[in-house]
């Protein structure tokens, strides 16, 4: 059964609702991207940092973290704040890697000093975080990371190459796993916080996506010196700490997925609208029964996603606690991909026209969205890895690797 709000929670919910209604920001000059990890313009960064800070100051961010570290000190408030922010359809929080991955990891494995130093500005979006796990040779297989950390007195010297680092152009800090020893694949890893912005030896290079746009980066480390005080947990505990991070990745992905508010709903509504306005034969694409059947299949999947989000909170209708939560990423991203593909199909010959073309339907959104969708089915654990996780953790089948 869905948990009923306690009186305090009910009061907090009301607060969120009132505050959000009163403080909804005007939209930025140019349209926000769908996902926080796709933010690439300085204008959007500024706008979104200011918005997160305002939400934090209103008590809608870090509600359940201890107040000693800048949190609200409550229990079960963040879920409510998230629900209300989604409901109010306000912009997303930009520091998504920080909130979703770095903060819980630091809370769990950090020293008292680390928690006090890093968490408050993270919550306020005064300092943006990024994450350095993937490398050119270690995509899905994170434990084969080769970036090295060599002890040098009270310091460590980092050398290596990280890829897929969203938000790195804006980030002050990165959470990173590095190899201090080659003896054991897993026990040879140690976990650090490393500075990114204005740091000697660090090069952030935006990677170009297949869309032609940027939005994620590669980060090169050349003899980067960091003090031992920036190590998280013990030497050799890197893999364990990384597991804590990944445990929270889903949350980050969900946060990222909620995008500019109702990404999926917008996409589906747009799809139906597109079909109804696109001429085909004597009528519109919507009159084509085969296309309509496809669109309806997409609409059913979207409705299913909505009802599953609802069912996920009804204990009596759940078979396994992780069964619905672990599905979220793969179901949502594959739906967005298929929806974009059907949209592209509807546009027919016009699907050849890209964003700069004045005659491109919906400003070229459909080919752009379709190309971009592969970032979603690949990043943060490919769909293939997600299916492994579901089969192994929920259905108890043998590990495939």
């Amino acid at each position: 059964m869905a948990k009923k709000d306690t009186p305090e929670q009910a009061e907090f919910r009301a607060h969120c609702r009132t505050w959000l209604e009163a403080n909804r920001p005007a939209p930025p000059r140019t349209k926000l991207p769908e996902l926080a990890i796709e933010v690439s313009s300085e204008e959007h960064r500024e706008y979104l940092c200011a918005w997160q800070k305002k939400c934090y100051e209103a008590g809608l961010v870090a509600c359940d973290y201890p107040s000693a570290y800048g949190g609200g000190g409550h229990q079960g408030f963040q879920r409510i704040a998230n629900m209300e922010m989604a409901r109010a359809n306000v912009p997303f929080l930009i520091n998504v890697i920080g909130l979703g991955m770095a903060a819980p990891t630091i809370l769990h494995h950090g020293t008292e000093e680390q928690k006090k130093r890093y968490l408050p500005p993270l919550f306020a979006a005064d300092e943006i975080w990024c994450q350095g796990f993937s490398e050119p040779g270690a995509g899905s297989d994170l434990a084969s990371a080769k970036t090295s950390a060599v002890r040098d007195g009270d310091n460590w010297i980092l050398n290596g190459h990280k890829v897929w680092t969203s938000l790195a152009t804006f980030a002050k800090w990165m959470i990173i796993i590095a190899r201090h020893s080659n003896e054991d694949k897993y026990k040879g890893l140690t976990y650090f916080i490393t500075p990114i912005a204005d740091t000697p030896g660090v090069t952030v290079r935006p990677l170009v996506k297949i869309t032609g746009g940027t939005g994620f980066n590669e980060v090169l480390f050349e003899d980067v010196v960091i003090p031992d005080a920036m190590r998280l947990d013990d030497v050799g505990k890197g893999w364990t700490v990384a597991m804590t991070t990944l445990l929270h990745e889903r949350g980050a992905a969900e946060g990222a997925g909620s995008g500019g508010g109702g990404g999926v709903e917008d996409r589906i509504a747009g799809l139906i609208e597109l079909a109804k306005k696109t001429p085909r034969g004597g009528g519109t694409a919507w009159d084509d029964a085969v296309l309509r059947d496809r669109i309806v299949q997409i609409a059913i999947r979207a409705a299913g996603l909505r009802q599953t989000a609802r069912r996920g909170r009804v204990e009596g209708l759940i078979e396994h606690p992780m069964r619905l939560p672990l599905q979220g990423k793969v179901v949502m991203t594959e739906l967005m991909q298929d929806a974009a593909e059907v949209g592209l199909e509807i546009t027919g010959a016009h699907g050849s026209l890209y964003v700069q073309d004045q005659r491109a339907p919906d400003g070229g959104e459909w080919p752009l969205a379709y190309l971009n969708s592969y970032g979603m089915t690949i990043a943060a654990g490919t769909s293939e890895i997600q299916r492994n996780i579901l089969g192994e953790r929920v259905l108890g089948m043998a590990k495939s690797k």
Partner: protein
Amino acid sequence: MQPKDFGFGEDETILRDSVRKFLSDALPVDRLRKLVAGDHVEAYEGAAPPLHYDESLWRKIADLGWTAVAVPEAAGGAGMKMVAIAALAEEAGRAALPSPLIPTLIATCALREAGTAGANAALERIAGGAAASLAITNAQGSWEPGDTDVVAEEAGGQTVLTGTAYFVQDARKVDFFVVAAKSKAGVGLYVVDVGAPGVTIHADHIVDLTRDQAHVELAGVAIESAAIVAAPGDGAAVLARATPAMLVIVAADLCGAAEWQLQTTAEYARVRTQFDHPLGFFQAVKHPIVNMMIDIDRAKSLVYGAACDVDCGEAGAELSARMAKSASADAAAFASNRSVQLHGGIGFTWECDVHIYFKRQMHNQMLYGDAVYQRAKIGALL
């Protein structure tokens, strides 16, 4: 505003748990197998279709009050919500229950919409443990009320029904039919007892081993006024109002059976070893099973969403119920396909239970319109 939890609260959870417990005790799969698939020759090659039916089990079910679940309190029932009925149907599907429960629940939902004395009397019988089935489908398989092949005529102040209703579910297990018949004034609905003079039940030879289907011939069956559920001209609207509930029940049955297929196949993948690994090690096995789960979860969420829409009297209930049926039918088709294939050689044999569920799914997928049919209807609603 709708309840966030679909209105699926403590009462519903208790009902569902008790149903699941009862069925897993009373009808474990080996007992089910003996009951419906004991003899393959008798199953399909006899002159008359077999009636695989444990009547004592059915009496226990009626005594437990499952038939009364959907009957309004005013007619002596429990008057539970659609989400509870969905849960009951889901468990029936999970157990592949060979009984007239599903048609009785469906008939109940139709009767609930009529609001007549005749309907009320029929509901009271169901609350008391009687089983019923709709007899509304014509020879071509259309259940659009106006398409019925049964004609109602007035003769000597009495209504007389003539014609045949086809694809009547569990016809040999129920006590009465709710027949759709047309006359000049439109479609009416009538209660016809299985033993009434003029009624002949012709059992069909069907694939599904867990149910019973027939075409029911009505040769001048006289209807008393107390047996009129909906007057001529009112029947079509009653059935239209009942459609979301009917679809939710079939969809829930599909989901429950698909869950059984999922769990059984996953278990096989955990224990069966090939090439020195459990089957589930291989992604060609693991990933399709995960996809079964994803499909089922989508369908199940849509079922409870639609049930809640029915409970809340939402205008959108037809849309959401058709979505639920479409998603459930597709989930079931895929679950059936993979459950047989991934069991390999043994999955193709009569001794492996997966075929029992496979066939029940085939039947339910088509019942009251398959996925493509539902999506065509949905397209018109969007």
